[in-house]
């Protein structure tokens, strides 16, 4: 039995960065693109969680281009691949600007996702971002389910120096959202962030609850929520696509936030999400500190796959 695991451990000894170097070496040897190179690139993309379908598309496009242009210099291969990858992010990839300026008063932003993705932390950072630009921000503690979720948001509120509509544990999240929006309108705030409870996309009743929250918001303020951010953990594998699909079916997801990109995971599933569902990435989360949030930049994101 031990031997069984030894074999696996040995096979995995090569680190990811070693992999990129290896790819470049093979490219140099091949003086361009050949099947061995493509196979190495495929491994690299799969290991970044792009998934089989997206990886195959990218590799096929690359093969096509090399066939058409006859010869590709070793130095150009990775550059071409990066272009292909950026193209997969779709128009959303290029124009991934969230409402940096309030589109409405209040601009209502609902933040949704599975458990543990980083919704509350993201809201803390976004609140800070807007507050530091002199915007008036209000937070709604609509996660009334998880133990101490409201307390967690409360702490972020203090850190960001914004206001909050607190809630009772076990309260109806839709009514918390309703009260918060009413307060946001009365207080003339610029941004209202709705912190929803984490929910697995496969739970019909919880997804229905989310729909209800959004319906209540829209009834009170047509157009609200103006932005719905789906938070995806960068370590998520192929299930991320299923998450995005189900959340987008339930509510109108307008953008993604990819969190925990400060680890070694690359968040490659967002290529598939952008490709299949056309949802652009808005922000990336890079740590637990309040300013560890950046606007999404396709170029940087793709470069990081090869870092």
């Amino acid at each position: 039995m031990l031997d069984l695991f030894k074999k696996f451990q040995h096979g995995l000894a090569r680190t990811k960065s070693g992999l990129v170097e290896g790819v470049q070496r093979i490219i140099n040897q091949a003086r361009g693109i050949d099947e061995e190179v493509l196979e190495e690139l495929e491994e690299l993309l799969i290991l970044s969680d792009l998934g089989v379908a997206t990886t195959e598309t990218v590799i096929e496009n690359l093969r096509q281009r090399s066939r058409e242009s006859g010869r590709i210099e070793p130095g150009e291969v990775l550059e071409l691949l990066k272009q292909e990858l950026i193209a997969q992010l779709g128009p959303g990839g290029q124009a991934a600007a969230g409402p940096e300026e309030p589109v409405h008063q209040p601009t209502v932003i609902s933040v949704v996702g599975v458990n543990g993705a980083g919704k509350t932390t993201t809201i803390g950072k976004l609140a800070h971002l807007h507050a530091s630009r002199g915007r008036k921000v209000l937070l709604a503690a609509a996660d009334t389910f998880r133990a101490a979720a409201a307390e967690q948001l409360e702490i972020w509120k203090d850190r960001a120096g914004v206001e909050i509509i607190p809630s009772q544990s076990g309260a109806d999240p839709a009514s918390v959202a309703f009260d918060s929006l009413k307060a946001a309108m009365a207080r003339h705030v610029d941004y209202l962030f709705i912190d929803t409870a984490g929910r697995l996309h496969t739970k019909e009743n919880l997804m229905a609850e989310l729909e209800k929250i959004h319906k209540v918001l829209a009834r009170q303020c047509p157009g609200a929520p103006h932005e719905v951010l789906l938070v995806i953990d960068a370590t998520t594998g192929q299930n991320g696509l299923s998450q995005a699909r189900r959340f987008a079916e339930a509510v109108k997801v307008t953008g993604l936030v990819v969190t925990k990109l400060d680890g070694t995971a690359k968040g490659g599933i967002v290529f598939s999400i952008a490709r299949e569902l056309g949802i652009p990435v808005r922000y990336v989360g890079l740590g637990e500190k309040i300013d560890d949030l950046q606007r999404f930049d396709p170029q940087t994101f793709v470069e990081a796959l090869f870092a």
Partner: protein
Amino acid sequence: MFQELTDKLEAVLHKLRGHGTLNEKNIAESMREVRRVLLEADVNYKVAKQFIADVEQRALGQEVLRSVTPGQMVVKIIHDEMTRLLGEKEAPLVFGRSLPSVILLAGLQGSGKTTFAGKLARHLRKKGRTPLLVAADIYRPAAVEQLKVLGRSLDIQVYSEENRDAAAIAAHALDHARKNLLDTAIIDTAGRLHIDEEMMAEVARIKEATSPAEILFVADSMTGQDAVTTARAFLERLDFSGVVLTKMDGDARGGAALSIRAVTGKPIKFVSSGEKLDQLEPFHPDRLASRILGMGDVLSLVEKAQEAVDLEKAVKLEKKLRRAEFNLEDFLDQLQQLKRMGPLQDILTMIPGAQAKAFKGMQVDDKALIRVEAIIRSMTVKERNNPNILDGSRRKRIARGSGTSVQEVNRVLNQYNMIVKMMKTMKHGGRGMRLPTGF
């Protein structure tokens, strides 16, 4: 999905019929399909590669059993091999000799450590132990509060203190446990990235200060390719003794578990699904193998049905069905058996092919069952045995009694009538068809 894999393999192996053995060529072709399935289930690229190489070896030269088709044979070999790799025997929790016995939880942010800590505490108390929850996550806002709330709801003690040194908190917690005669300390640590040197050093210090009997690496079942990197880093630093898979109630296929198991060799000790504190199961390698291969969790489903269904009653019911004497009393009985199998949502995820889309839009509402039950319970015995006497005024009374509406009562009766009609046709058709138990 299982069907899909089998079908694909059948197509590839079609030529094999009449040959009777698996050979290099037909195996290699089918392995491409298997590889795809594995990668889509988030099994690490290299782990998948190695796994397939092993399976290929094993499958070569195997005679295709007469009773099965080559495709099924290959799937069986893969399933067996994967089950073997996932863990051949159950790995129960180990407890230390000195008191308290320490269980240290570690993992990435958001993997579900705190919720699992609560579940584990409840589980251990049920086994007769006296657990103490230790709040050693001093970083994430309100993490301590979260554990305290869980502890309160379970009526289990939580140790916490104002201290910026997590290792010291943990050590003090052990003193507290000894003084209060609590025999197990579950230490909930902060989520940390495996590349965060400072944080990894901290958890190593906690380990040193508490000499745990068990160190459990808590991993999200939705994790992708990076699972191997994190698992290895945590193993190097902590030499953990077991793995916990969380959020298994989603539709992730859980290939990360195979990756983690393959690179660390450590057993998977628990599978955690759902946010309710009683949703914790021991690990069944064969079931996870089925899930990774997209075969659905048929075994769990069968087992749940066996647990819930009263055999004697089932036999009686079958007789009644044959005579088409099914009344509302029996209907109620069936509903209760169905309810005993657990939340419908959980049952659905176990059905092969029910992953992802198949049940989209289907109403999975456990409360509907409760309402139906209430309606039937609001009837007199006479009414239940003889639903034909239910006139308008009786229905009105039943609706009031069950807190529902006449429309709902009508709906239940319509459903009942449909079943009766179905049974009549079955009876006349004369075929010895068995209704699936539970319905």
